[in-house]
């Protein structure tokens, strides 16, 4: 199991052909208090770059574009009642959805943890 990151502050964890997607701790901190998470339909087909989720905080709405292509297997239904989970645990229990994808080339092209940390340092 390994995790990769995007410049839009999403994380993707690979577990065989299932990819769990969420936003990074940096992203949740930038958004502030999250009050609503709009999740994709399960079984929907998603292409890389498609709208995956909208995360609304008191301050702003963050649109999450899918970092990979595939079929939505599962969404984090906990977020429906507890959107603040994304603030509390962005990179764990605040995950957004799981996507099944046979080809991992899109995943492999993303930044690893080390590269993402370097990317964050450049931002500050």
């Amino acid at each position, binding site marked *: 199991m390994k995790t990769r990151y995007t410049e839009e502050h999403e994380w993707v964890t690979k577990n065989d052909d299932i990819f769990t997607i969420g936003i990074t701790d940096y992203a949740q901190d930038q958004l502030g208090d999250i009050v609503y998470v709009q999740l994709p339909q399960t079984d929907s087909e998603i292409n890389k770059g498609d709208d995956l989720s909208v995360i609304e905080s008191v301050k702003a*709405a963050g649109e999450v574009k899918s970092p990979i292509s595939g079929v939505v297997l599962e969404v984090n239904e906990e977020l429906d009642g507890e959107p603040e989970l994304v603030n509390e645990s962005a990179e764990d229990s605040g995950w957004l959805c799981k996507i099944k994808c046979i080809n991992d080339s899109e995943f492999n092209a993303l930044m690893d943890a080390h590269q993402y940390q370097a990317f964050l340092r450049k931002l500050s």
Partner: protein
Amino acid sequence: MENNFGTEHKKTTLHSRHVKAGAKMIPFAGYKMPVSYPSGIIQEHQHTRKHAGLFDVSHMGNILIEGEYCAEHMESLLPTDMINFPLNHLRYSLLLNKQGGIIDDLIVIRTNPQKFILTVNAACLEKDLEHFTHHLGNQLNISKVSGKTLLALQGPESASVMHRLGQDTSDMGFMTYQKMNLADITCSVSRSGYTGEDGFEISVEDCFADQLASSLLADERVKWIGIGARDSLRMEAGLNLYGQEMNESLTPLDAGVFWTISKSRRPDGERPGGFLGFESIFDAVSKPQKKRLVGLVPEGRSLVRTGTILTDAVDTRIGYVTSGGYSASLAHPICLAIIDSEHAAIGNTIYANVRDSHRAATVCSLPFVKHRYYRVPDNL
């Protein structure tokens, strides 16, 4: 620090204190201001409704106007009854243009028969000064006041916090003003604010700002609150924000603040009109009202943001959201909106165009959260 236009942002005297408290600082009206502290906007909002929130609002502008026949002269610009304006009281007023549009909203304090102190929006300070000077510069002394810090203490425990600092404020009603000592510091205090709660706005010389903030924060019921929660609190209280609910092409009727025109200055009053813009406003009053400021509760939980276009059931544009956000007290989205009067009945359903969908929203009465201003009890 620089903004997008390359000009430097001003800092309030307490800037480094906010940074030390972990605030996120953002550019706001030419200043670097704390938008929120580590606890976040929702908790800050709820803290203010339950306890006492402390806001640095030193970015607000202050103008001093004085001279002979000050009240009479000021009536040529402000729609407020300036003549029968009790000493040491505050009035919420408007600066209007010739067309009756709103140049700014402001708080006026009468500290002396010939002297008024005005608190204006930071972003409007220079144009307000120019406006007053252009119209009244020959008759009155008009000057910008600087070197002061303004702290707002807001929430149901505010009066008890003041009491602990040595001041019993039980005889001080909402919208009144007093000079007093707080923790041995001379302060100018008004019982006012912009959250809908009881509270105080405390003006102090910059050199005592840090000491006063420390004294206030020494009370565990007092917490720093950022401008993020200030905005959601005022929205719940149905209070207008200049640049959103009010601008130079909206009249007091459009913006729901016709009440700021004192009874004596209205068409049927003893000194009707006489202020800049009154002809346009009186003309509008005599006709059916075109637009109206309303509250909206959108269906669902996704927020409807400022600027969202509003339509009727057949997709005709009827207005827009002037302020949209999240009500931390009610735990659902809320909006202030200016819409065509024919759609403004309480309970009416209109539609918000959000991300290519039409979200139903119900027109509701304002405020969303009841005001809890302090009235002096009859037996005092």
